[in-house]
């Protein structure tokens, strides 16, 4: 018996029992967080991130010179909970990996957010990673899309991101940490309505012949994610509309009951 974990067995099942193209469970919670304008807790399998969006608002004093006269700037900050990863390690604000992650997210959203509507202002995206089991960047991007949408910031399109990899010749979707460590992986962020990709990131080597397969599958998976995310947003907006319509009347009824 080899000491390595068998990533795909003879029946084409992965180490956690999924089929190659099967995604992990997604749960989206729009519970408010403090004073944020838009917030979401997004869990994808065992990866869990909290994103809150503030703005667009006037830049903080001291960072005002970083704003542009014709568009809003995006400010992305990523923090990692020390207890969320297997080996506890404190990563400060200056940690290179987190800064890189933040820069990637920022450049992903810059063409998607309609920043020209808010000149000289800032939109803050604060990301807190609570648990990590692979697919960190896709989870951050999907959650940020949802949080921006709940904050009412105009977007050209959704960004739906997913990681993909290849084991042997078999393309895989939505890798866990174990799989990420072993197989070459690609992160693809698609804009599902226009069908364009706003992010393709690959840090490992992958054979050219295989890339197209993974890329196609990942683009399709992006569309699947889109339907999930859209449904969640629709439900929330529906709730808000219901409350808006029922609002004052409900309060009046409650008061009469109490008196």
């Amino acid at each position, binding site marked *: 018996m080899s000491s390595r974990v068998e990533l795909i067995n003879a029946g084409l099942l992965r180490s956690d029992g999924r089929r190659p193209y099967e995604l992990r469970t997604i749960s989206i919670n729009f519970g408010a967080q403090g*004073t944020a304008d838009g917030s979401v807790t997004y869990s994808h399998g065992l990866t869990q991130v909290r994103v809150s969006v*503030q703005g667009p608002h006037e830049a903080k004093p001291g960072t005002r010179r970083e704003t542009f006269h014709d568009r809003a700037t995006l400010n992305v900050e990523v923090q990692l909970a*020390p*207890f969320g990863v297997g080996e506890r390690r404190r990563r400060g604000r200056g940690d290179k990996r987190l800064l890189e992650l933040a820069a990637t997210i920022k450049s992903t959203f810059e063409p998607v957010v309609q920043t020209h509507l808010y000149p000289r202002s800032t939109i803050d995206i*604060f990301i807190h990673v609570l648990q990590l089991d692979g697919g960190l960047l896709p989870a951050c991007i999907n959650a940020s899309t949802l949080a921006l949408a709940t904050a009412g910031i105009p977007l050209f399109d959704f960004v739906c991101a997913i990681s993909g990899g290849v084991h042997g010749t078999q393309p895989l979707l939505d890798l866990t940490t174990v799989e990420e460590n072993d197989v070459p992986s690609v992160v693809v962020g698609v804009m599902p309505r226009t069908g364009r990709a706003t992010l393709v990131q690959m840090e490992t080597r992958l054979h050219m012949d295989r890339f197209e397969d993974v890329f196609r599958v990942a683009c399709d998976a992006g569309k699947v994610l889109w339907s999930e995310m859209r449904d969640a947003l629709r439900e929330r907006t529906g709730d808000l509309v219901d409350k808006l319509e029922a609002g004052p009347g409900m309060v009046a009824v409650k008061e009469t009951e109490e008196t």
Partner: protein
Amino acid sequence: MASISKAEKAYVQSSLLSNPPLRADGRGLIDFRTIALESGIAPIANGSARVSIGTNAQDGGGGTEVVAAAKLEVESVGDGEGVDGGRVVCSVSCSPTAYPLLSPNALDDLQHDMTSVLNATLSHPTIRPKNLCILPGRKSWLLNLDVIVFSDAGNIFDAIFMAARAALWDTKVPRTKSVQYRAKKSDRSDATQAMDMDVDETAHVGSALDTRQTIEVADFELPDYWDEGEPLNGRQAWPVCLTLNLLPALHFLDATLQEEASVPLKLLVFYSFLSDATPLLRGMRLLGTGVSDLVQVNSLLKDGEKYARNVWLALEGKLKDEDLRRNQKARERFLNR
């Protein structure tokens, strides 16, 4: 943390000092907002809890929210910072969401202040749990308690200490078994024969009268067992914090951000109430720009003890409820499924 104008400050102060005292949300001076607690929220940590104070029921926003999690790691005693018998290290980090107006550097300062208060109280050797020791003099557990402030709507220290106490209450220390390596008698004689050395065999055999026993435990292993381990020893002893907000003539509890900004002085008291013993004051801090005197502090300590006991009792009840919910009730639900 909120900055408010002089007029707002005067408004808040005068309404607190009026008779009867008035607060913006209609509470009395010593009333708390609603507190919610949930433990076991981080499956990778050894113990965790989430506490929120005063979130509104409709959407769960607008209150103070704090998450604490304890994680254990093995540490060698002697080299580096390891201490015989284990140690507890606390840290507080603030999400920028909680303090959107602060610059990153100011945020660092703030979390450093909070860390020092928490660490000074909880990592004190007198409340160190006994079962953090693995092999005396060689290996011990290092307990990292990480607290994250997700949003602050006032009374942050009470929330941090409540979350910390709940997380430590929830912490399970994995069971360990000491192991010792010893060559078999027969192996050893074989080896000496094979090497054909002139070794005095009797030298290995100790005197029959020698009852001294040198226990040389070399290492430990984690036995495979169905549960996560045993709770920390003396988990009742972790203190609760109570913040008394002081105006010259009166004090009040559980201040909102506006109220915090309009009082010159806060007194934090850390109490633990062990059964039937006299309450233990684990520490106190005077925060703010104002001054106080011994007589006032003395009477405040007495009042603080009274309020802290209520907080303690409520928290104790809730923690036992959570234990029940996560163990017994979960098991019943599993069986009746």
